[in-house]
């Protein structure tokens, strides 16, 4: 069991990056960039979930953004209905979304590959319409809790009232998310998933409950999506249905593949591409539509040239440099 606590070089690098971000970024980033980085951090958690499911089990979820919407909805609903602390709301939102993930996984019991992806896409399409119709709670009365005009106040965590502190809070949550995934990978579920990925026949023959472990993976991805959505709600104070469209869910998966689904670096790259790149193009004065074109072209280029994602290319390059130095 001693291997469980070992920190790999990649792990050190990830922790160092998180620490650097948390300490340095708030010091020199302006209001705008800090808010971009904060929502980037939220999407990072969701991307980690979708990438983990693809890398470990080859299962594709095209509903991650929609699940974030579920988490955000629960968060806002709880915030405006009760006086619970932020952390309790966060955990409840994540758990409710995890249950949604389980429900979504029901078809996964019998479906594979593209069909599974399409079931999740249908769920995303349905949730998109539900969000657009009922909107997100903003302090109104009733179950829907929507009111016209200005939104009610949103309570941020007591630990992190300021934007700077809230950014650090999100970074800490992202680290926890990655640690959760890594812990699963190193313990029994990770070994079982590896067996299932290699051969479902072998896994079944070895007495593995394939369905249970697949559902479990869906649940973790849902948990992360729910936490991400709740944190996003905390960052903005209110949510807009346009954020959780089905096309965004597909985009999130696409970026997880482009960044590289196998490790934290890929997820970080994907989140940066999703949030920071459009914001950067916006500041440079690039037309929003042309930003779409650049984005699409980049996506296509990365999918074609980098099967392991951009992270795979980067680590490959680093390895080559080291190999040359050693030689």
């Amino acid at each position, binding site marked *: 069991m001693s291997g469980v606590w070992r920190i790999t070089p990649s792990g050190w690098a990830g922790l160092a990056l998180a620490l650097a971000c948390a300490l340095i970024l708030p010091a020199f980033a302006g209001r705008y960039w800090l808010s971009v980085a904060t929502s980037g951090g939220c999407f990072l958690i969701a991307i980690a979930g979708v990438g983990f499911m693809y890398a470990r089990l080859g299962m594709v979820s095209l509903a991650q953004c929609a699940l974030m919407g579920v988490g955000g909805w629960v968060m806002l609903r709880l915030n405006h209905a009760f006086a619970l602390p932020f952390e309790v709301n966060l955990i409840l939102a994540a758990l409710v979304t995890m249950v949604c993930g389980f429900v979504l996984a029901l*078809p996964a019991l019998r*479906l594979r590959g593209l069909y599974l992806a399409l079931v999740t896409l249908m769920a995303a399409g349905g949730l998109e319409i539900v969000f657009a119709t009922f909107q997100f709670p903003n302090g109104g009365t009733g179950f829907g809790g929507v009111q016209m005009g200005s939104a009610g106040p949103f309570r941020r965590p007591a630990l992190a009232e300021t934007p700077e502190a809230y950014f650090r809070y999100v970074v800490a949550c992202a680290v926890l998310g990655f640690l959760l995934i890594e812990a699963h990978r190193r313990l029994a579920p990770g070994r079982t998933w590896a067996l299932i990925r290699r051969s479902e026949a072998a896994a079944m023959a070895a007495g593995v409950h394939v369905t249970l472990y697949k559902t479990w993976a869906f649940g973790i991805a849902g948990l992360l999506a729910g936490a991400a959505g709740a944190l996003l709600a905390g960052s903005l104070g209110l949510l807009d249905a346009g954020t959780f469209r089905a096309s965004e869910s597909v985009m999130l998966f696409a970026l997880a593949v482009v960044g590289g689904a196998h490790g934290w670096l890929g997820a970080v790259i994907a989140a940066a591409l999703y949030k920071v790149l459009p914001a950067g193009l916006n500041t440079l004065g690039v037309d929003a539509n042309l930003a779409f074109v650049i984005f*699409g072209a*980049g996506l296509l280029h990365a999918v074609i040239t980098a099967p392991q994602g951009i992270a795979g290319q980067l680590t490959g390059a680093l390895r080559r440099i080291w190999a040359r130095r050693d030689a």
Partner: protein
Amino acid sequence: MDLAPPPARVGAPITMRLAPYTNWIAFAVAMAAVVLALGWGARPNMLGLFVASGLAVGSLYALGGIGLVVLYRATGVLNFAFGAAGAAGAMVCWQLLDWGLWPPAAWAACIAVALAITLAYGTLIAPRLAWRDTVVKAVATLGFALIILGITTYIWPDDPRSISLPTDDVAIRFLGLRLTLTRILVVVASIAIVVGIWAFLRFTAVGLQMRALANDRDLAALTGIPILRVETLAWGIAGVLAGFTGLMFATLIRLEPVVITFMVIPAIAAAICGRLESLVAVLLGGLSMGVVENLLTLSDTFRGVRPIAPFVIAALVLLWLQRGQRLTFGGRE
């Protein structure tokens, strides 16, 4: 495409003889129940109107679904850029009409643009991804769709526009309902296209090759089928369908690039109804989705969420089709 159920033994009990038709019977019962539940108490005239306009919307979903399925079967690519190609075609068509071009030329241009865009992807980009996961191939087309959508909305910024066809002004009365020729045209076209493609796959040499490719790519390649040519043809068919669907969508529903681009998602729902395989089931699924979606307007509870109909139907169909199955470890998918 093989829809004929195996002949049951004569003299077998009735339940056994009906067993091959379970899916069709379930479909008929479910549709009848939905129509009755939603249309109960509505004036028959009103009901007819909703069903008729539902059929028109539904055939748009079906057309999209057919385009997706033909391409998916032949090439293994689920084309998210289907709607984007149609949107670009429709916008070009609007521009040409605005400049006062002879309308038939503008309509042809719509289909030509969609065809060119789809073929460009099919010949330049798709072969580079041939060996990747099905899902990754599908996601790559999303990147392409974003490029097309970005260019289209850059050239034609948000502005209320519309295309009207001469068939909009012609209407016939049928059982007391006034139906524009465009609506009839789109329903008839979707049925004709299914029959046409079925005949093409069934009776031509290329159709046979396409079916072989759909059945098993590697074996088809071994037997010397010119894969590239057959695939290009499939991309071509998909392109033409995208152009036609885009034009019809722009006329019947809305001429807005973003809306037309993402109509691919309900089209995928229609394709799911046919298990990405059976064109007849795609057609029926698409039509039923349109009808149910329109009938939901009659219900006070569900009026707001009626666009959800395609997704719910697709999810139910998937769950129904895989009932009684267990996850086993055969097959590629």
